[in-house]
């Protein structure tokens, strides 16, 4: 009996030991692999490495430092930047009204439920990164009548919203995309505050999970339709495919009836929508999936085809399969469209603005500014800047250029993080900064006209 037992042990234990060392080695081996040069993943044909799976998903976030007095991000040559206004509470997006008034949407996501032990850890990490900062759930109005970049008026435009993000004005109807509904408010030209109760146009997929809560919004040029970017309810379907109903999609909402249809699907988190000025086509920025490597999957900027399927969750960049989703859908994967332009991995594009103004140098005309909020699961950090993608003939025509940098310092501390973008009436680029709690304005560097500091 003892002999048999000893024999069994002597056979079993070394094998188990080998197995455990192998498994542990697997985890450790993946701990120190850094991402490659992001430039290899910018443009139409990004280099896509093999996917990896982790024991310990890499988490690397920038510690929040905030802006010191007179500190600003750094604008590219020929441009200048200054704070249009400071002291916001988590400003996520900016919108410019026809009279030049700037709306600043101060918002944060709803409280995430705890489904798994991991969610406790994630919540803690996000807190550290400043993502759980107090939010106001309101829209603040800034008015700069003189056009000198110093607003004379600052009022609470709309209050008591529910995690708002997108804003669109059609005629005298102002639409706010809360996380769970599009709400219409009456707006009169020059109005500085809306107290009227809103009218719900349509529900949007909201809680209780509401993983990607931002709802981007864009009105069609004729004003008959609203396009809504609705993010997925998970990283890669881990909350069940039922939770993804009508998510990871761009909705087309009929403005008259509130009825909607899915305009395009398989876009994990379409956080910004714009009309390309030359062709009039719909373009979107999107945040791709996490936890399969520092260089997977590149976030992107793409034209959006009516009825198009862009892969999520089954595949990425066309037919690259994701093994984390079951059952798989080869029928859908076969139709998956590869996006037009990769922005590199985990940069988290959260704002896009096609430049139709004239203030900035001519090379910026017709191209797309993209606000890259910055990575949290990649080493080295990626994003944390505003880039410009040049366009020609309605298509991206070159590598992305850094326009505003300096959100990260040399110690990788985040003074701010860029989010939503907009072009103001005089052609300046506005940037919401939800960690620095500032709205920045980028304009042409004109000799002899130093910008006044914001009050």
């Amino acid at each position, binding site marked *: 009996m003892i002999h048999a037992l000893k024999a069994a042990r002597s056979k079993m234990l070394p094998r188990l030991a080998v197995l455990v060392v192998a498994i542990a080695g697997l985890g450790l081996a993946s701990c120190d692999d850094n991402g490659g040069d992001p430039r290899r993943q910018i443009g139409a044909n990004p280099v896509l490495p093999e996917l990896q799976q982790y024991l310990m998903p890499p988490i690397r976030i920038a510690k929040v430092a905030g802006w010191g007095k007179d500190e600003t991000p750094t604008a590219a040559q020929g441009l200048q930047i200054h704070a249009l206004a400071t002291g916001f509470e988590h400003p996520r997006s900016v919108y410019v009204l026809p009279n030049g008034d700037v709306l600043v949407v101060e918002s944060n996501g709803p409280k995430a439920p705890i489904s798994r032990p991991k969610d406790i850890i994630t919540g803690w990490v996000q807190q550290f990164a400043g993502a759980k900062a107090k939010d106001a759930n309101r829209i603040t109005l800034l008015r700069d009548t003189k056009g000198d970049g110093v607003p004379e008026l600052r009022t609470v435009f709309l209050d008591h919203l529910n995690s708002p993000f997108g804003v669109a004005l059609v005629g005298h109807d102002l639409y706010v995309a809360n996380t769970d509904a599009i709400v219409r408010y009456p707006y009169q030209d020059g109005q500085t505050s809306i107290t009227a109760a809103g009218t719900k146009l349509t529900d949007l997929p909201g809680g209780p999970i509401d993983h990607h809560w931002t709802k981007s919004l864009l009105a069609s040029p004729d004003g008959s339709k609203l396009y809504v970017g609705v993010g997925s309810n998970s990283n890669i379907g881990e909350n069940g495919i039922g939770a993804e109903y009508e998510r990871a999609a761009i909705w087309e909402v009929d403005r008259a009836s509130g009825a909607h249809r899915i305009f395009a699907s398989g876009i994990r988190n379409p956080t910004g929508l714009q009309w390309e000025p030359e062709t009039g086509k719909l373009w979107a920025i999107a945040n791709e999936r996490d936890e399969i490597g520092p260089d997977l999957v590149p976030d992107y900027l793409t034209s959006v085809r009516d009825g198009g399927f862009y892969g999520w969750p089954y595949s990425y960049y066309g037919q690259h399969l994701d093994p984390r989703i*079951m059952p798989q859908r080869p029928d859908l994967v076969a139709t998956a469209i590869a996006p037009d332009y990769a922005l590199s991995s985990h940069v988290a594009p959260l704002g896009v603005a096609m430049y139709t103004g004239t203030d900035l140098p001519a090379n910026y005309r017709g191209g797309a500014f993209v606000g890259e909020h910055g990575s949290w699961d990649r080493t080295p950090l990626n994003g944390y800047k505003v880039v410009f993608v040049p366009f020609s003939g309605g298509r991206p025509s070159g590598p992305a250029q850094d326009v505003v940098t300096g959100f990260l310092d040399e110690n990788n501390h985040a003074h701010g993080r860029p989010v939503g973008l907009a072009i103001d009436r005089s052609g300046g680029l506005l940037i919401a900064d939800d960690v620095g709690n500032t709205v920045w304005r980028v304009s042409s560097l004109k000799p002899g006209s130093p910008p006044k500091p914001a009050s």
Partner: protein
Amino acid sequence: MKHATITEATFIGDASLRSTAKPRGRPLHRILVSFSAAYFAGALVTDLVYWQTPDVLWERFSIWLVAAGLIMAGLATIAYVIDLAGGRQIDRPSWPRVVGYAFAVLLSLINAFVHSRDGYTAVVPTGLMLSGLVVVVLLLTAWVGMALANRPRVGG
């Protein structure tokens, strides 16, 4: 001998008999170890159901079961240390059992990380294999433990 014991028992109350013979009841750490083993075994069952369905609810059961098992294992370790430090008379450590259990807990810790992945590969195939392996290790450990406890003692 047997007769003598019975005689003794008739004169001494139950409580004092036990206190002179061995510690009252099972040591706490043994109970906690049993709890953790049951949680780990439960995770194998929910993993198997997930593999067959695959409904995310079962994957969530699995990760909470693995996590609860790890917490119980942690508490068991604390209880064991307290028992040792308190000079309480507990069984002399039986190394095959300690090593076997520690190995199962280590595997479960790795399993918790695997189960914290997003989507199907949180379970299939690595998580499911680890859950199965943990149960095998626990069964072997229990078997070895029993075999050792029952072996005739040499030299009393």
